[in-house]
């Protein structure tokens, strides 16, 4: 869910590019290598390459395979409705990728949605019947490595990985690849998360604030006052008591990459970092969720829930964004990309909605504190014994190049863009693997560049296509506010979300450990369930706040203590 939602952002970029340019190919960070390589590859494609010397670098990375290869994959099917005649495994996107790589992709199975996909992967693991390649999560990667079911990709990646892919992995200072490696063997090609996705900002309806004559919040007390006013003083002015205060999600906190409605920021304002492994005052590795600071946050939230400051229905929504989209709330937490979704829907439903983002509430000393996310959380793996692991890497090269707008086949790319524009289908959803790579500081950089260009400090023509698009959208939005929703989404996400991230001095807290330990393997899910349920129950008043202490004791007893030891060992060993 999470990942797909985020995708919304670049999706728009893909969409609209067809309108304003035809897929330029200059990129400030990395251009010559990949473009030349691709061009060389194109000219070679017809001639065959038997008599050429062994190729290296991008020549090899983008080279079309000579003999047809088939990769059978587990496919995460999107919601997009393809036109008549197109299918999930045979459509304009798959045909294009096959035409550039020479690799045919078959679907061993498909699943739609996060849980069904996860279950299909788990069934495939359980029955030791993996497709040739698929995307797994951290837990599953661990299981697969343990069971010796997947290929070591170290050499294949070294040899066949494109410069672009390598550059983006390098932008994480090696963290991404290290995360997918065990004993220096690379077992999966990880995605690269955008750093900006971790902090959860406070989104507020400015028009409601103005109407009730309130000022933007800094502290927790400010937030409480605003939420109370939003719930009780009829901010939407329809004379009915149909608004709520702060909304939440039944997950309570997301811990790493938040979706809308996590309470992460409230916890970190108390210097509590649930779901993260942190170092305590004396430097010991401890689990964030069982630290006493959580109790203060929970006490506050439980009190708010009781007093109706938090949406009383928050745990019930099937889709957490319901109150936001329906404009029942003017206050929630969410990462920088909220304007893409769900805020665009809120604005469509009520054009008066004027959302703003704030890095609030702050801690006692006035500082905004946030946990960070792991650099990666999904991994492309190859079944042990599959003959063509290089084909998987080549597919990744090909669709990453396309995704990052560096594909030299301008004509074909234009066709894809037109197709997307006509049908509303998202090209990226039909890449064989749901695994997107980007530079990890892309959002903040882009915001900065766009603002500079708007101020005339730099020339927008030097921008890479993604940045150029944000720039164009930002100009369009300035001229005709809320006219073109695509422009609104991109412009506002960067201006509001990106802007706050860029301007705010934050205290960033990194988890010291994201993996799985031996004991975690059997006990973690139980502990996690205990934790999630305890937090939720305390907030909704099913358990008293004092139950937190019982939870800590039980957590330790049920294996938490042992796991903490193991994590400390691994973390200090690094």
């Amino acid at each position: 869910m999470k990942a797909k939602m985020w995708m919304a952002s670049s999706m728009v970029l893909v969409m609209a590019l067809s309108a304003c340019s035809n897929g330029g190919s200059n990129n400030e960070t990395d251009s010559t290598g990949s473009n030349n390589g691709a061009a060389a590859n194109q000219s070679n494609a017809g001639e065959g390459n038997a008599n050429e010397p062994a190729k290296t670098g991008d020549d090899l990375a983008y080279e079309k395979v000579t003999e047809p290869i088939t990769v059978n994959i587990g496919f995460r099917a999107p919601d997009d409705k393809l036109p008549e005649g197109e299918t999930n495994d045979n459509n304009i996107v798959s045909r294009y990728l096959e035409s550039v790589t020479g690799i045919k992709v078959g679907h061993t199975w498909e699943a739609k949605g996060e849980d069904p996909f996860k279950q299909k992967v788990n069934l495939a693991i359980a029955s030791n019947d993996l497709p040739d390649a698929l995307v797994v999560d951290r837990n599953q990667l661990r299981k697969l490595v343990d069971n010796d079911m997947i290929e070591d990709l170290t050499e294949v990646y070294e040899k066949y990985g494109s410069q672009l892919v390598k550059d983006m992995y390098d932008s994480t200072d090696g963290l991404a690849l290290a995360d997918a490696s065990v004993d220096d063997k690379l077992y999966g090609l990880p995605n690269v998360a955008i750093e900006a996705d971790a902090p959860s900002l406070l989104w507020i309806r400015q028009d409601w604030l103005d109407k009730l004559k309130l000022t933007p919040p800094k502290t927790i007390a400010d937030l409480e006052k605003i939420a109370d006013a939003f719930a009780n003083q009829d901010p939407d002015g329809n004379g009915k008591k149909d608004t709520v205060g702060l909304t939440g999600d039944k997950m309570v906190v997301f811990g790493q990459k938040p979706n809308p409605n996590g309470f992460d920021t409230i916890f970190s304002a108390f210097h509590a970092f649930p779901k993260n492994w942190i170092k305590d005052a004396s430097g010991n590795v401890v689990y964030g969720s069982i630290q006493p600071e959580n109790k203060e946050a929970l006490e506050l939230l439980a009190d708010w829930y009781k007093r109706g400051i938090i949406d009383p229905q928050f745990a019930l929504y099937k889709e957490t964004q319901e109150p936001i989209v329906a404009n029942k709330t003017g206050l929630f937490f969410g990462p920088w990309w909220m304007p893409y979704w769900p805020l665009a829907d809120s604005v469509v439903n009520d054009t008066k909605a004027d959302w703003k983002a704030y890095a609030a509430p702050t801690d006692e000393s006035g500082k905004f504190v946030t946990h960070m996310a792991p650099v990666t959380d999904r991994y492309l793996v190859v079944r042990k014994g599959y003959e063509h692991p290089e084909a998987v890497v080549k597919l990744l090269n090909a669709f990453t190049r396309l995704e990052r707008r560096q594909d030299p086949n301008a004509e074909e790319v234009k066709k894809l863009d037109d197709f997307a524009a006509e049908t509303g289908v998202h090209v990226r959803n039909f890449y064989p693997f749901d695994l997107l790579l980007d530079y990890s500081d892309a959002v903040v950089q882009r915001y900065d560049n766009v603002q500079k260009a708007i101020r005339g400090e730099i020339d927008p023509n030097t921008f890479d296509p993604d940045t150029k698009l944000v720039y164009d959208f930002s100009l369009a939005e300035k001229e005709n506010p809320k006219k073109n929703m695509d422009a609104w989404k991109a412009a506002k996400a960067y201006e509001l979300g990106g802007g706050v991230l860029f301007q705010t001095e934050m205290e960033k807290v990194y988890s010291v450990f994201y993996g799985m330990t031996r004991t975690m393997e059997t006990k973690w899910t139980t502990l996690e369930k205990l934790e999630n349920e305890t937090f939720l129950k305390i907030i909704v008043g099913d358990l008293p706040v004092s139950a937190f202490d019982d939870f800590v004791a039980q957590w330790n007893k049920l294996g938490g203590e042992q796991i903490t030891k193991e994590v400390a060992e691994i973390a200090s060993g690094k």
Partner: protein
Amino acid sequence: MVGYNSVRNRIIDGSILAALFLITIACLIPLLHTVAVSFSDKTAADAGRVFLTPIKATTASYAKVLDDGQFFKAFLISVERVLLGGLINFVLTIMMAFALSKDAKQFPMRNVYMWFLVFTMLFNGGVIPWFMTIKTYGLLDSIWALVLPHAVQVFNVILLMNFFRNLPKELNEAAEIDGAGPWYVMIRLYIPLSLPSIATVTLFSIVFHWNSFFDGLVLMSKQDHYPLQTYIQTLVTQISAQAMTSMSPDELAAAMAVSNRTFNAAKIIVSMIPILIIYPFIQRFFIHGITLGSVKE
């Protein structure tokens, strides 16, 4: 005296009827409500203003269902499953029920088989072993994976068996003296005499196949192969987050005009239709079909 009694009786009758009327209404309200929602305008449905009559009646949701290719694919798969599964159940149930209706003197292994059936009804290996078994047989993603594991409906066998046991023994004996074999007895004597019961268990097996969702979820590899209930179970909001990002406000407005609440209600109604069609025809057999399935020794 008599007058007093009859007045009193009438009052009692009246209150009984009133109570039954209320009970019947209670059975219908959720269903009627769903029908009303399915014919209502989206905004009214979302605001919860629809009760038992549609507000701003529209058939937009049904038009959308008719336009939903996957819904119909799933619908057809369910029909196929019901036909195939129902037929297999029909044949096996009758054969097994007939043989097992004999006592241990006539059919020495009878009790062994019987306990075996009960055992299989209660024990199962769980989802993972079940999945691995079907995979081993190479049946994943095929209609047979939905049909064969449920080929024997133990409960139906027991029901029909008990009905057979209640048929007069003389029937069997007389026929056998005339030299008729057991197949003949089953087909020519037992089946014609048990039509209500057979109709009843057949309805049960049809309904079972129509209503199953979980096996489709686990055993089908592509959602194009999901039967209807599985499809409905996994329904995610049609206007997804991603789709929204790319729609223009006009498109969005059009899409939003048919909300998921009304759309889903329409899907629910359409998926009930087959049951609603078959049910009244077979319903009248129930009372005769299901005598308390048991025999007094």
